[in-house]
């Protein structure tokens, strides 16, 4: 069907492209973050950012239309669940308000400066999501704020509900955020109010389920309790996530007798599949640096 020259040319082309791909892979793994391929990626992202922003904004009605169909299907199931949650939250709110009033009174009495749950003084920068990675193996989004807005690498990023990830690449006007569902992600966290510590890892492909790993067996972890970032660190390594950012709620606890640790399943507070706006915490809370240093517990800075 084909002459030998055509066959040879076809095979040579395939060989060249496969070889080039393997060479790219090897070079990419071999170089540091400041290498030529990484720089090329940053340059390409910076060049494509305005186009992606424009396309994202122009075609938002299309996305919303498809979102509306999905939401309508989901709404019925969510309705009953949310009603129950509202009831539960109302009673919790009443308890929290009572407790808050009590706290205010105690503060007045003893003059104790207490921090609220969420870290203060973090200078959040609000950004719009302009693109997201198409594969589940690299869970990342791109936002329309960059180094010009004070965004730097390894700053925590939150969305409505709680923690979603950290900044991994920054250009002048954009930044890439690696989500906590990314295969390489790990976040030092603790279960409140018991204080059991662990590392939040993703379960690739299931953004509604995170794993809190390395939780000591003796610690009692109950379903429904809240998991927040612990902000723990040693003298040399410090978690990039400040203490107190909500991560999710415990959905299941695996108590396997063989394992040394408990495996706690968490449902994240933030909806990681539908992110429109996020906030980058551009400043570390001033009170937490000294508080975290010197505490025990290895902290992962992914």
């Amino acid at each position, binding site marked *: 069907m*084909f002459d030998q020259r055509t066959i040879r040319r076809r095979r040579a082309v*395939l060989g060249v492209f496969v070889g080039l*791909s393997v060479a790219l*892979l090897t070079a990419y*793994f071999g170089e540091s973050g400041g290498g030529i391929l990484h720089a090329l*990626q940053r340059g390409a992202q910076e060049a494509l950012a305005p186009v992606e922003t424009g396309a994202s904004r122009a075609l938002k009605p*299309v996305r919303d239309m498809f979102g509306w169909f999905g939401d309508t299907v989901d709404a019925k199931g969510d309705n009953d669940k949310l009603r129950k949650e509202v009831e539960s939250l109302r009673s919790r709110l009443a308890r929290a308000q009572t407790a808050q009033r009590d706290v205010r009174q105690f503060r007045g009495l003893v003059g104790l400066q207490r921090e609220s749950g969420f870290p203060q003084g973090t200078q959040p920068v609000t950004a719009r999501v302009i*693109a997201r990675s198409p594969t589940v193996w690299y869970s990342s989004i791109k936002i329309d704020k960059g180094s010009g807005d004070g965004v730097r690498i390894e700053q925590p990023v939150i969305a409505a509900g709680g923690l979603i990830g950290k900044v991994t690449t920054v250009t002048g006007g954009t930044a890439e955020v690696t989500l906590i569902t990314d*295969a390489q992600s790990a976040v030092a966290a603790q279960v409140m109010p018991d204080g059991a510590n662990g590392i939040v890892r993703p379960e*690739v492909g299931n953004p509604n389920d995170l794993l809190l790993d390395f939780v000591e067996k003796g610690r009692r972890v109950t379903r429904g309790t809240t998991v927040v970032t612990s902000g723990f660190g040693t003298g040399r390594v410090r978690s990039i996530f400040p203490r107190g950012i909500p991560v999710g709620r415990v959905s299941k606890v695996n108590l396997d007798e063989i394992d040394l640790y408990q495996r706690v399943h968490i449902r994240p507070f933030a909806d990681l599949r539908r992110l429109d706006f996020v906030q980058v915490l551009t400043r570390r809370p001033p009170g937490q640096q000294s508080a975290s240093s010197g505490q025990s517990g290895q902290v992962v800075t992914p």
Partner: protein
Amino acid sequence: MIISPLAFLRVGLLLLLGVILQLSVVGQIGVLGGYADLTPLLVAAVAYYGGSVAGSATGFAAGVLLDLATGATMGASSLVLTAVGYAVGRFREVRDPSHGLLPVPIGAAATLGWAAAYAGVSFMLDIGATVSPLVLRDALITVLLNSLLALPVFVGARKLLRPSLAVDPYDRRRRRRAPRETGPIGLRGLEV
């Protein structure tokens, strides 16, 4: 495919448009928990109309573009998409198909191949995390959505690439349809 600067421009434009649309719009529209993926469809479309050489070159270029735009590991996507493009191109060259609905199974097979091979490459690169079985569900939904998108994507790609195509399978199909009302009575259906 006739290799010319205009052909390069057309394929480059198609890929750039596809990747931007994928990242900004299609990748953000979740359907049943999954997302459509235009990239393997575009590579398959070019390979289907242009053959294995054009297919593997387009696959490589699409992979590099995708990795550059998303910040993923450079070379992984291009390795897989090169193979996808080559395979679709070879299928076209060996079987010489011309059925109008063929883009649907070809798009599905290309997407399935892309998802499976990319997962394999990711495993080999040591992702170091637990993998949920829901990955399979997501991949199947992507294959299903891409099957639905295959026809319009292939039609669009064909329209864009047509001036650079050496052979258009649909044109050949139309030429094969001989006039049925020719010839004298008794020889109807035969070309005379």
